[in-house]
């Protein structure tokens, strides 16, 4: 037999398995819908975690990401020296960018934010120091940050130094924890999907026992008998992935507005986003793969045991 004839036969056998498994699903649709929904919910949960972590990441990167140091200068410093001091701080390898806030700018900002402007107005001169805000280079180790801090403190013009690395370190740890928790949840629920399909397929195989026996009797290969069950797993998994995508979109739509309001309160223009097309497609693909996986386990465990009486 030629290659093309073999390919045609192979395609025909697969089409038969795919269609006949769809027919089986249609005949028992309430059960199939429930299985797909269970898979959908199990997939939607870790997917929601992933989307939440992605959104958190986006929201935080808007705040600057890398840690920064606030260098308060002595109030006795000559204002003409501010720019030169700022530039020299910026020369360090550990510093990515510097921004100078003069006492006048600081006072104006204080006035804008309100509250303390009245007591400040009572003073005859501006008590605020000049500040150099230094954005540190990303990925700086704590030893390097320590070295930089020591260098800055040694400068005569520097009165005080504040580095927000503790807060950044805590945040990074929280995100790491979130990512790890997402991975664990995804693993457990992925396993749930496989087990749900394993059980569904076990019952499906039992329901088709007679058909399997007769097919073996008249010369059906193991692959031929196995194929419709693998497709049943695939269809359930794909449908579950689709349901998960829909659930996730609905959830993001429900959360979007309050999340945006919260972000506005923090002075951020952050907008929450859903899984998107690529995310939804990968969710459906994951569902399909887990579906085939669960079906494969069930087939390996239960199908080989059925022999003609």
């Amino acid at each position, binding site marked *: 037999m030629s290659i093309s004839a073999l390919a*045609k036969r192979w395609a025909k056998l697969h089409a038969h398995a795919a269609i006949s498994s769809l027919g089986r699903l249609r005949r028992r649709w309430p059960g199939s819908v429930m299985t797909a929904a269970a898979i959908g919910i199990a997939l939607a949960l870790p997917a929601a975690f992933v989307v939440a972590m992605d959104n958190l990441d986006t929201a935080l990167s808007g705040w600057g990401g890398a840690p920064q140091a606030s260098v308060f200068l002595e109030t006795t410093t000559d204002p003409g020296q501010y720019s030169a001091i700022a530039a020299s701080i910026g020369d360090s390898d550990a510093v990515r960018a510097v921004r100078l806030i003069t006492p006048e700018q600081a006072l104006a900002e204080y006035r804008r934010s309100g509250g303390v402007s009245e007591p400040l107005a009572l003073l005859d001169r501006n008590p605020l120091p000049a500040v150099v805000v230094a954005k540190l280079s990303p990925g700086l180790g704590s030893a390097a940050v320590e070295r930089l801090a020591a260098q800055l403190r040694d400068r005569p013009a520097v009165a005080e130094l504040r580095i927000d690395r503790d807060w950044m370190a805590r945040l990074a740890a929280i995100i790491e924890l979130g990512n790890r928790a997402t991975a664990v949840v995804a693993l457990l629920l992925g396993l749930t999907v496989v087990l749900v399909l394993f059980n569904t397929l076990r019952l499906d195989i039992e329901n088709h026992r007679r058909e399997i026996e007769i097919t073996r009797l008249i*010369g*059906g290969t193991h692959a031929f008998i196995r194929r419709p069950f693998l497709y049943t797993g695939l269809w359930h998994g794909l449908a579950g992935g689709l349901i998960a995508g829909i659930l996730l979109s609905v959830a993001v739509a429900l959360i979007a507005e309050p999340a945006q309001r919260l972000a506005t309160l923090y002075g951020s223009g952050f907008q929450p986003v859903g899984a998107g097309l690529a995310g939804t497609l990968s969710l459906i693909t994951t569902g399909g793969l887990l579906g085939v996986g669960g079906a494969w386990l069930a087939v390996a465990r239960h199908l080989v045991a059925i022999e003609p009486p």
Partner: protein
Amino acid sequence: MIRLEGVGKRYPGGNEPLRGLDVHVERGELVFITGASGAGKSTLLRLIPRLERPSRGQVLVDGANLARLPHRRIPYLRRRIGMTFQDHRLLHDRTLFDNVALPLVIEGRPHAELRRRVQAALDKVGLLAQSGAYPVTLSGGEQQRVGIARAIVTRPPILLADEPTGNLDPALSMEIMQLFRQFNQVGVTTVIASHDQPLIDALGHRQIHLSEGRAA
């Protein structure tokens, strides 16, 4: 075509239907296996498509020793052997057409060829008009004929029948036997297990009589 050499079959629990059986069926021959129920007729037939394995001895089909046949080749052995059963073994949720088509579907035959062959097979057994019916609506004799149509639809070189006239009246039994004779006349090696001695005697083919697990 079919050769059994010193074949014994012993089941766990001590039941031993075959005890050193030697049988040889020539290519194109029609042979009846006779004997009381429990004499091992069904066991003998089931050894040929390797539905059973012998406890000892050898089974050769078309020169191939079944003991040396790898597991994955068994389906291809079974495709070359059409077999009918006393209890028909039909799928009750499928139409006659789909039941008879199953061996062709397994082989991935093109749709047009499948349709043509199934119709020819159903026509041969006189059930073409009922091709859309379900097996439960048929009599025992008609179900047996569906089983025969399924067995011959792939035109296998070997045809095995286990008690094909089990619960049928003499006229219907003769009809069924005549069908097998027709297949045999076009060259199909045919082995029929039956205890209907008068009918077999009337047909006059070679008989292998089983008694106490041996060919008498």
